[in-house]
Structure formats: structure tokens, C-alpha cells
């Protein structure tokens, strides 16, 4: 391996002079952590759908939806390379760090998007494939290219793209958008603002430097804390809804009530703890907890449905 380094024209950091990107770097373009959440939420959508799905078709659909999410992530990194390089959190990503040329990220994302939509159309149906194509379009064009740099409501509206995977999963099985899948959509949609704004409160200087109008640097920290609390007040009861409408069982009910109460407690702490060393710590606690919240709720939904506990014991 060459030890010669060169100055990266974008990031201003030294990178290996050789072409450094292997499969691992390309995989990182797909935002694997976001993909893991998409896999879980789409699987929940598949399992709550009315009707039976062959395991192969279910697997292929889930794979297509997650690759579609990865494609959207790669296209996001292609477009956002100029602002990612300005933020500490994102400057080491494959494109801004110079590991992968932006053009290759674009080709990679477009190829994956086509393959994902084509695979879903072949494995499941055209309705779900069209929904997946719309999801990718919404995330890349509506959120990344348009809203992200335009309005502090960027992640509120853009959150619809992240909330669609369970709807796509359900459509892959049933061929339509069901009310149950819309409940799951609503949970993720309302979950998105407190999740991102808790992080944005801590990283507001980063966003300001990059010129991204996130809520804390556009409307102020106080307004952001209030909105986090309001969205959390909406999310806590909404999280219980799958049990109330008969979609989930007792395990889910207990977890959603307990986690909802914890969410409200943390959101209240973020609202009240405005200054001092503790303020950022509390925000990061809420940020971490929101991830746990969604993983546990959808994990339990998958567990109850996937293992037949809901049908067998009426849990």
C-alpha cells in the first residue's frame, strides 16, 4: 500500500494517494445504521399486512426495500458532499473525505435504486415498487435537494420518507396501503422531529457552519425544546396505538406505555435543562433513547407477529 498522501481538495485532509475505496467504503455510502432501522420497520409492515406471503417473496421484498433505502442514502451523500465536509459529524464520510468521487456515489446510488425498484416489482407487485420509487424520490429530491437547505421544517416533512418503509412492506404483501400500516407510518413520522432536533441542539454550530437551517439555529434553542416536548407528547400515545387498534399484543402494550413515559420524562428534562454542562448531555440522552424507543417498539411488533405470539396467545 502506498504511503504517499495528497491533499484532498474538498475536505482539506490527507488521504491515501491511491484510489482508496473498496467494497466497505461503498457499503458505508448506504448508511448501514439507517438501513438497519428500515429493515426492522419494513419487516413490521410485511408482518402486519393482511394475507400470507411466501418466505422467499417476503425476503426479496425486504431486501429490495433496504437496498432502496441504501440507494437513497448514497444519493444523499452524493448531493450533500459540499455541506458534509463542513460538519464534524459527517466530514469523514466516504465522499467528503475523498475516498469515493462524488460521481461514483451518484452512479452507485442510481444503479441500486433501479435494482431495488425492479426487484420489488418482480418479487411483489407494482404498487409497492411504485411506493418504493416514490420513497427514494421523496428522500433524495424533496428532502435532500430541496427542503434540507430551505426550511427548519426540513426533517418534519422529509421524515415522511423515513416513515414509508412499513407502508411499502405492507403493500408488498397486500398490494395496497392499509390503515394499520399508516399507524406505523404515523409513529415514525412523529418520532423523527424529537429524534433529530435532540441531536441538532448539540450540533447546532455544525449546521450553522454548513448553512443548514435546522430548528435550533433557525428558530432558536428554546423553540426547539418546546417543539421536542410537543412532538413527544404526541408520540407517547401514538406509540400505544398499535395495541389500541388491535394490531399488537400485551407485550407491545406494556413496552409502549413504559417507553412512552420515559420519552416524556426525557423530553421534559430537555425542555427544562437549558444551560450548563448538563444541557447537551440530556439532549444526547434523548437522542439515544429515541433510537432505542423505535427499535424496541418495532422489534416487539416483529417478535409478536413473526413468532405467532399475537395469533396464538392473543397477547
Amino acid at each position, binding site marked *: *500500500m*502506498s504511503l504517499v498522501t495528497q491533499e484532498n481538495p474538498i475536505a482539506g485532509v490527507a488521504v*491515501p494517494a*491511491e*484510489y*482508496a*475505496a*473498496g*467494497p466497505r467504503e*461503498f457499503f458505508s455510502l448506504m448508511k448501514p445504521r439507517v438501513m438497519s432501522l428500515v429493515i426492522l420497520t419494513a419487516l413490521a409492515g410485511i408482518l402486519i399486512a393482511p394475507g400470507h406471503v*411466501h418466505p*422467499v*417473496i417476503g425476503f*426479496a421484498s425486504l*431486501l429490495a426495500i433496504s437496498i432502496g433505502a441504501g440507494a437513497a442514502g448514497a444519493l444523499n451523500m452524493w448531493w450533500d458532499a459540499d455541506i458534509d465536509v463542513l460538519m464534524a459529524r459527517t466530514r469523514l464520510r466516504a465522499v467528503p473525505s475523498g475516498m469515493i468521487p462524488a460521481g461514483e456515489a451518484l452512479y452507485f446510488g442510481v444503479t441500486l435504486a433501479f*435494482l431495488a425498484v425492479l*426487484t420489488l416489482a*418482480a*418479487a411483489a407487485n407494482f404498487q409497492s415498487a411504485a411506493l418504493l420509487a416514490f420513497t427514494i424520490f421523496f428522500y433524495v429530491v424533496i428532502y435532500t435537494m430541496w427542503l434540507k437547505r430551505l426550511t427548519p421544517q426540513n426533517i418534519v416533512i422529509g421524515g415522511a420518507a423515513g416513515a414509508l418503509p412499513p407502508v411499502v412492506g405492507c403493500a408488498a404483501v397486500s398490494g395496497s396501503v392499509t390503515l394499520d400500516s399508516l399507524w406505523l407510518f404515523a409513529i415514525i413520522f412523529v418520532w423523527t422531529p424529537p429524534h433529530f432536533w435532540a441531536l441538532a441542539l448539540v450540533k447546532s454550530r455544525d449546521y450553522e457552519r454548513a448553512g443548514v437551517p435546522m430548528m435550533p439555529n433557525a428558530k432558536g434553542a428554546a423553540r426547539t425544546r418546546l417543539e421536542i416536548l410537543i412532538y413527544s407528547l404526541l408520540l407517547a400515545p401514538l406509540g400505544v396505538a398499535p395495541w389500541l387498534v388491535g394490531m399488537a399484543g400485551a407485550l407491545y402494550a406494556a413496552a409502549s406505555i413504559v417507553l412512552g413515559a420515559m420519552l416524556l420524562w426525557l423530553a421534559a428534562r430537555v425542555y427544562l435543562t437549558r444551560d450548563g454542562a448538563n444541557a447537551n448531555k440530556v439532549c444526547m440522552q434523548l437522542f439515544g433513547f429515541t433510537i432505542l424507543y423505535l427499535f424496541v417498539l418495532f422489534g416487539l411488533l416483529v417478535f409478536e407477529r413473526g413468532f405467532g405470539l399475537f395469533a396464538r396467545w392473543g397477547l
Partner: protein
Amino acid sequence: MNALPRIDRTLTPGQMRNLKLRNLAIGLAVGFLAVLFYVITIVKVGPGVFQPMP
């Protein structure tokens, strides 16, 4: 017609390794897709696809 100028480029061992890994990953992905589409076809059409036409 004039021939294009020849570009000599020697890859470093690191570049070569990454190139091979990328080619391998693309090959595996294409192979996996072929198998996946084959299995999807069998599942959707059913085992009758193997029966001879009457």
C-alpha cells in the same frame, strides 16, 4: 484515423487489491441477483414450470 495516445498507469498493490475486491463484490452481487430472480420466478410460477407442455 489517429490512434488515441496510450496512457501508462501502474496500479499500486493497494489499488490493485481494492479493484479486485470491488470486482469480486460486483460479481457476487450479480450472481446473487441471478439466483434470486430464478427463485422468485419458480415461487411465482410454481413447480408446474418444470412440467412439459401437453
